[in-house]
């Protein structure tokens, strides 16, 4: 750890927050002004560099700062609402952006003034993301974008997007991509709700028709988009598997409460499954805890993929058991009206919603099958399947 890192300990950071709060009264100040001031004081994401909302302090101490603000009753930046910006766009801009891009985008991203979305997946490029077909063609100082993106949460609220587009169809697929920041208010950007099996429209389809983006919105070099996107995708998996929970803090808690309150519903078979799931939930929780300790110790482990994979299976089994336990009552949903929900709230809605929404957990953010490939190849070092798409120009691949 650097000397700079060592000068920040929990007590010092709490003092820094207290000093900040003494100078900025959140009870009288405008919420956004307060958040901007917190950013400018380096108390936003403390592991970011000085001048970009951070202190260059150890990431492990972020929770100390967040808790100190929460205890004081200060407003936060509603992290769930801006998760894509915080979890994916920000680390990518920090790592690959120009100084100007960092200064322009990171502050309003963190304060939540500007919401971000992710324009990666396409109807014909899901697990095989590098096969994507959205084209970016250079025209003077601009790029002209044409294509269709899908599974875009927050697109209807977003000011900006991180966008992966093909700039060279004549080279193999991974090499012809470039990473952009897309202005969601630009002419030619059309957002349509995509209704999913829950009846909600958490996601969108985004149609890009002759959208002009200045070259200053390019992130990283032309043709280097795949490498830049790896930063985004690594952070996505950490974000999905990463939240700390107490015992029975997730869906297992709902199920356990129902079990305790309703002796009439109990059967031996359901009891056995419940106990198996209680054990599995606790194992997943402790694995996540161990992963966080590794991250805090500066040894990011590959457990992130494991947590994401087991979390998906666990949620599906838990929500299936809940419907079965409740019997005919479990079949009652609240409302099928299409909602434009922007966050997933497993705990507030019906068992029907939980059962259906959990089906997405093994698809979004890397399917469970792709995650198993990643574990097998990157963690265990097993050979790849023979591939037919590596040395072939993208335009010549079968589609």
């Amino acid at each position, binding site marked *: 750890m650097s000397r700079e890192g060592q000068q920040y300990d929990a007590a010092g950071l709490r003092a820094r927050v207290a000093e900040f709060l003494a100078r900025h009264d959140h009870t009288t100040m405008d919420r956004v002004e307060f958040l901007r001031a917190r950013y400018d004081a380096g108390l936003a994401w403390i592991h970011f560099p000085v001048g970009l909302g951070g202190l260059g302090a150890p990431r492990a101490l972020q929770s100390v700062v967040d808790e100190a603000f929460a205890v004081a009753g200060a407003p936060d930046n509603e992290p769930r609402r801006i998760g894509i910006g915080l979890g994916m766009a920000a680390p990518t801009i920090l790592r690959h952006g120009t100084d100007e891009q960092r200064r322009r985008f990171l502050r309003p991203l963190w304060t939540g003034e500007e919401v971000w979305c992710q324009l990666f997946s396409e109807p014909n490029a899901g697990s095989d993301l590098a096969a994507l077909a959205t084209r970016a063609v250079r025209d003077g100082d601009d790029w002209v974008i044409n294509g269709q993106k899908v599974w875009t949460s927050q697109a209807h609220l977003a000011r900006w997007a991180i966008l992966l587009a093909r700039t060279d169809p004549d080279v193999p697929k991974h090499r012809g991509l470039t990473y952009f920041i897309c202005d969601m208010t630009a002419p030619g950007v059309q957002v349509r709700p995509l209704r999913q099996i829950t009846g909600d429209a958490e996601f969108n389809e985004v149609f890009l028709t002759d959208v002009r983006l200045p070259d200053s919105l390019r992130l990283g070099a032309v043709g280097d988009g795949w490498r830049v996107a790896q930063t985004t995708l690594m952070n996505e998996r950490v974000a999905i598997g990463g939240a700390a929970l107490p015992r029975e803090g997730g869906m297992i808690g709902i199920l*356990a409460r129902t*079990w*305790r309150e309703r*002796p009439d519903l*109990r*059967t*031996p078979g*359901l*009891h*056995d499954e*419940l*106990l*198996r799931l*209680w*054990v*599995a939930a*606790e*194992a*997943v929780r*402790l*694995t996540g*805890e*161990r992963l966080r*300790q*590794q991250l805090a*110790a500066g040894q990011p482990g590959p*457990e992130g993929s*494991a947590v994401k*994979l*087991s979390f998906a299976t666990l949620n599906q089994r838990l929500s299936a058991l809940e419907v079965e336990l409740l019997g005919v009552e479990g079949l009652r949903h609240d409302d099928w009206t299409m909602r434009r929900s922007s966050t997933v709230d497993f705990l507030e809605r019906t068992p029907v919603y939980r059962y259906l929404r959990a089906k997405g957990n093994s698809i979004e953010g890397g399917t469970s*099958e792709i*995650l*198993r*490939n990643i*574990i*097998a*190849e990157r*963690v*265990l*070092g*097993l*050979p*790849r*399947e*023979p591939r037919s798409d590596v040395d072939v120009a993208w335009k010549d691949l079968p589609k």
Partner: protein
Amino acid sequence: MKHLLDTPLEADLRAGVRAMLADRCPPQRVLARVESDEAYDRELWHTLAVEMGLAGLLIPERHGGAGAGPREAAVVCEELGRAVAPVPYLGSAVVATAVLVAVHDEAPLDAEDAALLRDLAAGTRVAALAVPYSMPPFSAGVVASVTDGSLTGTVRGVADALGADVLLVPAADGLYAVDAGSPGVERVGVASLDLTRPLCDLVLRDAPGLLLARGPAAAAAVTAGLTAGAALLAAEQVGLAQWCLDSTVEYVRGRYQFGRPVGSFQALKHRLADVWVGLAQARAVAGYAAACLADNDPDTPVAVALAQAHCAGVAVTAAEECVQMHGGIGFTWEYPAHLYLKRAKADAIGFGTADRHRAALAELVDLPGAGR
């Protein structure tokens, strides 16, 4: 929250034990001695317990220990599991030692008992708790009747007792230490599934015993021993599963069929990824159990039941996949996979099955069954 990673000292300990086992306990050596008459590998035990001084890790400083504890013992158990080492560490350095420490916590030991604890720590004597290997911590029972200080009873399927010098016997009115060489003590070796931790049947006929503890203190000591055993068995299961995964990955990378390594087929890759996921969880769960035990945490019974409910299945699956993915060679006597499968399956019975531990959890975390 408990610290679930190795401390620097634990990492050093792990490296030391692993290096020693790589040198002194390669699979070929384990395989070569399993059909001998020796109950355990005495040379290896001497190195581990006497030369490296690792048999006394569970003795707390208040009783003259070196300031180590269950976390360090878990490191040793994990490495021993990885090598499927044929030594009575779990039975003597973990279970029997934890029993004596618990006795000592209740009342000062007399000279003879204190000498026993000292000898166990030094590795110069080996002890075993005379209960069936399948006895879980939450249903510890007695195995012998007592007449004028002499013990009579039969216990089937005792682990790590065949080569033990001293047997700790939970009897009707208390816990006794019985010299294994006394008249009235008969041990009959069992042709056991696990060749590296053979079981024996124990028959006591008016065997002379020394009373260690009475009544509730005796029962509490036995429970403490079994709790330590169940917690650290989970570490052994982690090590066992790790060897199975590592050896299988190595094999499928180098085995070519249909013109490519069989490890490039997703049918195998995905199953190995699942083994790795289960193992990552087992490592966290076993680490939590050892850490709770070390801190004497009130959550220990839950942590131990959780570890045994989870880790047994992980080890068995890893060993079964190891045999299957090695194909024909995995089914041979020559290749050591069977030693691991046998140990994994026996460990799944040790200190109670996963199902019994789930039943214990139902009580501990208030998830009662149908009709309750």
